[in-house]
């Protein structure tokens, strides 16, 4: 069989071409550091590369979310920690502070509370990256109105002070806390609430008596009333009767009257008269006086606290008046007549308004809100302390102040069982820790993915260099053979 010279040189040329193509490819790998520049020649690794690239890109979006969320959470926690400090300061002041009035009719604690209120409001109105942190989904409006407006209101909108004043008027009534004292018959004294279903004033809850010969009925009926009927024998000195009264904020107090033979009787005592009728008359006068004193002390403080609850409610609750001192119903305040302290969003569950997706199927709900109980407690009690004033001339002021601070101190201690600010901070800290661990997990995942990606995509320079060397040797050999073969022709020998 013959081999044509053309075919022979063609074969040689093809194999040299082939080597040169391979050389070019290896050179490209060496310079770019990559095995290939297209998906097709990645071979079976392409699904892996596609999914890893996707994973890296997806993880980076999660990381972005985590970073933004962390910034918000950390800022929120800073704010809440400052607020917690303010709450503690006011709590300590409430429980230990003395009643020393300054010129403005307020104690040092109250003046401090006013300043802390402004600070708290500034903290809650903190804007991070063009975004309000404490207004729920309403991120573009400052969630809390400024302290001056909150306390004083303006010409058309009632502030906290007005709401307190109106509530106080409604609770005090004629001074006896909306209780009416009458004598339906000689020897009998009747104490009754002035209107059925009215939320205002003292509420009779229980009467207990050790007065001999006195028949106590009630409290019963609507409006609730209780009758004390004196008869024979007359009570003897030292025997007493206790009126348990519920106050507007749900707390209670007790008015105690002790029978005495002294005339005139000391406070909290009534003089045993010659007969049942005189004793009853003395009893009625002493009870009226005791109720008035109690009203100026615990009732007015409880009334102010309840006014605070009303003002910070959503919607705010107002006394249905004027007239206020005879009002028997409440009415919802509107944005037209009352300062709405919280301007943010009130939908959904406060504290869980935002969802951060931090991994495949892994989400964290976050976001504290100013109207959340733990937060509004601080604002409310600071505002309450700042809103109330006392007269130095009134003997009951010190007791009233003590009643008020007892209540603010207890509220700031979260005695009512609601979530405390500290626990909100702890909660958020836990979520932040979740984010931290998700972040490090994602970072590990990204670096693992990237290392697998580079193993898959990157050319090994040693392997490439070795292959290049081998090919170069092969090519040199081919040239050598070609050159030798070209000399092997009969033409040369003729």
């Amino acid at each position: 069989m013959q081999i044509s010279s053309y075919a022979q040189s063609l074969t040689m040329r093809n194999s040299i071409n082939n080597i040169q193509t391979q050389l070019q490819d290896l050179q490209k790998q060496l310079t770019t550091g990559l095995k290939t520049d297209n998906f097709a020649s990645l071979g079976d690794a392409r699904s892996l590369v596609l999914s890893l690239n996707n994973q890296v890109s997806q993880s980076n979006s999660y990381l972005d979310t985590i970073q933004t969320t962390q910034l918000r959470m950390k800022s929120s926690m800073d704010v809440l920690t400052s607020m917690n400090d303010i709450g503690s300061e006011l709590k300590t002041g409430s429980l230990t502070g003395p009643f020393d009035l300054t010129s403005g009719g307020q104690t040092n604690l109250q003046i401090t509370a006013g300043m802390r209120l402004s600070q708290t409001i500034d903290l809650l109105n903190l804007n991070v990256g063009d975004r309000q942190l404490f207004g729920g989904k309403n991120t573009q409006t400052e969630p809390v109105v400024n302290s001056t407006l909150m306390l004083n209101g303006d010409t058309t909108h009632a502030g906290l002070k007005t709401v307190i004043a109106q509530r106080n008027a409604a609770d005090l009534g004629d001074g006896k806390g909306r209780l009416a004292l009458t004598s339906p018959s000689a020897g009998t004294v009747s104490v009754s609430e002035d209107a059925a279903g009215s939320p205002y004033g003292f509420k009779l809850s229980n009467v207990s008596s050790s007065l001999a010969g006195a028949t106590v009925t009630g409290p019963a009926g609507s409006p609730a009333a209780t009758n004390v009927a004196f008869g024979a024998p007359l009570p003897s000195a030292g025997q007493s009767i206790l009126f348990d009264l519920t106050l507007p904020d749900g707390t209670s107090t007790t008015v105690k009257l002790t029978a005495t033979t002294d005339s005139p009787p000391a406070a909290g005592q009534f003089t045993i008269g010659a007969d049942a009728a005189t004793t009853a008359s003395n009893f009625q006068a002493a009870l009226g006086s005791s109720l008035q004193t109690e009203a100026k002390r615990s009732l007015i403080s409880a009334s102010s606290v309840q006014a605070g609850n009303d003002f910070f409610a959503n919607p705010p609750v107002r006394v249905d008046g004027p007239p206020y001192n005879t009002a028997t119903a409440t009415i919802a305040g509107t944005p037209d007549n009352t300062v709405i302290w919280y301007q943010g969003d009130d939908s959904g569950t406060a504290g869980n308004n935002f969802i951060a997706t931090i991994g495949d199927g892994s989400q964290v709900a976050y976001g504290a809100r100013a109207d959340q109980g733990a937060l509004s407690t601080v604002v409310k009690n600071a505002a309450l302390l700042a809103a109330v004033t006392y007269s130095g001339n009134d003997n009951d002021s010190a007791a009233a102040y003590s009643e008020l601070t007892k209540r603010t101190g207890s509220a700031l201690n979260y005695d009512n069982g609601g979530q405390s600010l500290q626990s909100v901070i702890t909660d958020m800290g836990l979520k932040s820790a979740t984010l931290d661990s998700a972040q490090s997990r994602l970072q590990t995942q990204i670096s693992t993915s990237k290392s697998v990606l580079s193993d898959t995509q990157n050319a090994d320079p040693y392997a490439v260099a070795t292959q290049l060397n081998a090919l170069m040797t092969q090519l040199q050999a081919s040239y050598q053979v070609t050159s030798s073969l070209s000399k092997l022709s009969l033409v040369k020998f003729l």
Partner: protein
Amino acid sequence: MSLYSAIGSAMSGLNASQAGLDLVSRNIANSGTVGYTRKTSVVSNNVAGGEGIGVQTLAATRNVDNFLQQQIRTETGKSSQLGVYNSFLSRVNNMFGSPDSDSSMAASVTAMIGKLQAVATSPDDPAARQTFLNSATNLTSQLNSMSQQLQGMRLEAEQNISTSVDTANTQLKTIADLNNQIAQRQATNVSVADLQDQRDAAIDKLSTLMDVKAVQHDDGTVSIFTGGGQLLLDKQPVKLTFDEHTSLDATSSYNIDQAKRTVGTITLQNGTTSVDLIASGAFRTGSISGYLDMRDKVLPQAQSQLDELASQLALSMSQENMNGTAATSGAATGFSIDTSALLPGNSLNLTYTDTPGGTQHKVTIVKVTDPSVLPLSNSTTANPNDTVIGINFDQPMVGIVADIQAALPASVSVSNPSGNVISFLDDGATGASDVNAVSATVTSTGLTDSGTGLPLFVDGNGQATYSGSLGNPPQVVGFAGRITVNKAVIADDTSLVVYRTSPQTLIGDDTRPNALLARLGDTSRQYSATSGIGSATSPFSGSVDSFARRIVSVQAAQAQNASDNASAQSMVSDALQQKFDSETGVNIDNEMSNLIVFQNAYAANARVITTVKQLFDVLLSIGR
């Protein structure tokens, strides 16, 4: 026996040597010519009256293995077909860019999802919203441009077919001409070897275009048939025509029905008969077959994958599920649903159970306004477990209800209690069926107050709602080329957040972005098997971005297979060609040794003449 006859023989020897030298010189000169076969001179003893009178030079011949030649033609046909596959598919592969930079459209989908997540984190941030819209626009432009490139490549295939058909006609003409010359020369005993070389070259060229068979005749001519057996050339070549279409889009397709065909076809004209060669399956190998496959199968499939992606992208954002309300009529219970919001392509989903037995049936009732597409096949929805019923809604409610009832068993009763409401009730006391659930899948058209979805992607510059409407052609066909981001959303990027007006959604509300994220990431989403990914009984299901990645890997794998097949095939055909070239080509050493032989023969013959001359001289000098 005389000196004259000796001189005659020597002269014939000289001629034969000259002819041999002539052949040697031609062989050497053409040693590098492609397709040239080595010619050998054939000599025979010249006999006259029973006595040899010298040597006779016959026509030069060539030595060709016809079987090998036919094999080469078959293999080069395959090789050029696979070459076309390789060149087109590598371009499809290039559309996905480099894996290192990952600029593929799958990466764009992921990038868009990442930006949407940033919107979910900061819905109130205008920059985040605009960045997301920007990434969505990038994705749609990428889909548009890929779709355009695919259609451009189809058009290129169409043009290449046209050019190839012209070339085929030219080659057939050349073969016919050469056939004539060869027949004439063969009849007069003149060498036809060189003409045969030329004719082989023409047939070779023809076989790179299409699969042909050459049949040799005794008179030296050949007939050419297609692989399918149609006669292309006997005495006269037939005429191949191609009605090239100058513009193609995704809806253009080949159809055996000439009225429905919107791309060119190759017709064989022979006298008055004409045959559609594509319909008769004449093209099995060769570049024309490669171009046809590209135009009618491979590229349309790539297009349908992009279309499916675009469709699911749009529908995932805009589709809402509306539950039916419970309804009763006497003892019969079931559900009713308002169909007024239904767009063509939207559906009612009915679930009912046969009792007793408990076999549950899922029925998808698809709204159609073009009755010509009815009845719908079960594969209209990707879900393999439902029964699809297409109903023409472009008629009064009475007709709609009657059509639905006709498609359902009698135990489920369909009625129209009021307006556009349709009720599906069971058979009450009889107890042969229970209607379990009725819901409607509707596409929202407005930006607010129709759920948390958003028609972010719309169809074409006219901003038409995309609802996957079934018509002629269906809306999904070529949607990847038309998908755009809703201009109303671009004009007001807050609509990415604001999903209702009463109460007005706050701009810091992450409800809608999170809902959109969940829709895109929904791994239970199913994709139509007509795109060639997944099957009708087990469709591909996964998030939108995972489908995009699947497309990239499927297309890249296809490109790699094409490249592997092409190089494997070219090795086969190269090897055969080499074998052929080796056997039929010129070996210079052989020619040189022949040269020496002829040179010696010439010298020897010349010596004979010199000797005869001397003998004559001696003879003539006798008389002096």
